[in-house]
């Protein structure tokens, strides 16, 4: 696999604020990479640095083997789809699509031809003479993507492109963007705060926090083996449950969920007395009759979506359980909770790293 994009030791300072800290990241040609993290984590800054819209204060960025660190955006040959779409409001769809060609001096007839070709593949053929204000959100989104496609750039950059769309359209566009990526064989970098978008669309997910890459890898690897508590809590919905625990002699841990200490037999690679966090995903907890699970708890409340029931226990900290189908349990009921050992994640309480 050839590397299409490489960040090496990239740093970005805004005055005293250190936005990106020693970012090392390589992106394979033809892959779809998602940069994901909470707001302010530096994911957009990283993308904008790649585009050249932000000047990095340290390190190097290369695109297709060429170091572009000091190049202005227009010489980097990357296309970006903005969150706001950034369509030129005074131009028709066709003029929007062909703006880059016009800037590069392509003849009018050729531009029209190119616009028609791209519009045919993205379903904009009937809208070429409309203005952006006459389009719906989804159509504007398509124009923004088509404007990127028409240039055949070295990389596609997406800056939260779906966050202005309603939920149903978002799910649809997710598939459309991914299909487009596969068809073009493009290299895409996709910024989002929505871990579901990252998980479903990307080949490779990079989780950022406070300007640092917390973990990167294939989506399911991140889900199965989160490197630390942050990634464990960020990936997966609803978020993972964390139970503070102390390692006891004989490879088990003692937890306290509000009504006295409770011993759980879990193999932990830590010395006795160590403070750890035990993580269990809500979908890996199952309800049983009282006394038949690993421990018992009372139910605080339940929420049902019809297909799924979210159960919250009256414990400290509270535990979230996701049950498929409808469970006839009500708040106040006493239930047993069961889980498989394989679905347990243990983190060091101090460093929050996976043990």
């Amino acid at each position, binding site marked *: 696999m050839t590397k299409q994009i490489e960040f090496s030791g990239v740093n970005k300072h805004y005055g005293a604020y250190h936005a990106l800290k020693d970012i090392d990241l390589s992106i394979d040609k033809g892959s779809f990479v998602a940069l994901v993290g909470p707001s302010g984590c530096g994911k957009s800054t990283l993308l904008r640095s790649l585009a050249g*819209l932000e000047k990095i204060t340290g390190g190097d960025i290369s695109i297709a083997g060429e170091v572009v660190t000091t190049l202005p955006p227009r010489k980097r040959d990357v296309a970006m789809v903005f969150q*706001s779409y950034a369509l030129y*409001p005074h131009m028709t769809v066709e003029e929007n699509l062909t703006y880059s060609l016009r800037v590069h001096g392509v003849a009018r007839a050729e531009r029209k031809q190119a616009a028609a070709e791209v519009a045919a593949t993205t379903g904009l053929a009937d809208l070429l003479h409309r203005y952006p204000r006459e389009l719906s959100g989804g159509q504007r989104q398509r124009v923004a993507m088509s404007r990127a496609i028409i240039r055949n750039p070295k990389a596609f950059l997406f800056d939260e492109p779906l966050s202005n769309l309603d939920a149903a359209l978002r799910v649809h566009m997710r598939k459309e963007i991914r299909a487009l990526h596969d068809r073009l064989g493009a290299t895409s970098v996709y910024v989002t705060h929505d871990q579901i978008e990252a998980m479903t669309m990307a080949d490779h997910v990079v989780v950022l926090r406070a300007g640092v890459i917390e973990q990167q890898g294939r989506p399911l690897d991140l889900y199965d083996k989160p490197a630390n508590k942050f990634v464990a809590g960020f990936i997966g919905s609803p978020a993972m449950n964390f139970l503070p625990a102390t390692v006891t002699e004989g490879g088990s841990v003692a937890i306290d969920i509000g009504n006295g200490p409770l011993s759980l037999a879990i193999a932990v690679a830590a010395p006795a007395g160590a403070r750890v966090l035990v993580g269990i995903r809500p979908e890996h907890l199952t309800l049983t009759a009282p006394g038949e699970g690993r421990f018992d708890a009372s139910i605080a409340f339940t929420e049902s979506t019809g297909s799924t029931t979210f159960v919250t226990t009256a414990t400290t900290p509270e535990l979230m359980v996701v049950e498929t189908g409808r469970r006839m349990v009500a708040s106040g009921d006493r239930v047993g909770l069961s889980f498989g050992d394989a679905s347990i994640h243990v983190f060091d309480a101090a460093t929050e790293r996976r043990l």
Partner: protein
Amino acid sequence: MRRLYSSLVDGRGFDLCLIGIPLAFLIVLSGIPLIYNVVMSFQAVDMFSLGSFIRPWVGFENYRQLIAQPEFWPIMGHTATFLAASIAGQFLLGFALALFFWTNFPGASWLRGLFLVSWVMPGLVVGAVWNWLLSGDFGVFNFVLRELHVISGNVFWRSDPNFALWSVIIANIWLGTSFNMILLSVGLSSIPADLYEAAELDGAGALTRFWTITLPMMRSTIGALISLGLIFTLQQFDLFAAITSGGPNNASNVAQYWAWDLSFKQYDFAKGAAISVIMIAVVMVASVYYVRSTRHEVRG
């Protein structure tokens, strides 16, 4: 009675009041004087019939006489020069300054605010200041031009027929530039920054971005500004009164000053009114354009 009261407090009567009061204000203070002026331009008016509204109707005789006067076409020419040069100067300097402050260096907004000082100054004060600056013997303007070797001898700006009009134009450009700058700054700042980023990624250099993004996005602002400039420039009277009084020998006389001169110095009210009516026609066209360009604002 109660229905009338409730209608006045919360109903159709209240709506009519809201429209009626400003409408009455406009009719009394703008509409009637305007109509009076138009009617007067078609009548024979002298000092004795000044107080009455019913006067001998003469049709277009006032206009015919006005146009027949030897100074009519020169003065119209001066007015056109004054309009074109003032608007062009104010607009170009204002745009340059707006673009300069748009780069947003430290203290830019503060400095931009200071520029408004010229605009809030009364025209007569500005005229007095420029009288000193443009003074032929000891004026700073001449000094600077001489030191830059643009001129060899002193130029008597206010009394030389070749320069009198330009001395008022220079003062007027100084007066109006900051207003142009402020409106253009507002227009510039309302262009979303991501359009420029998108254009930059699309490969457009700074100049291309200016021609393909900034100017088209500013079209309505520019249209509004030019028509406002036309209206304001036709209203510019103070500077003429303060700097040249239309002289020497009408060399810097313009329509608005001539109208006042005819009416209130030569007491030829009918011809003064006739000039005003011609100016009203011009301003009307500008107003229509102004309203149209503010209505067609393109915002993404």
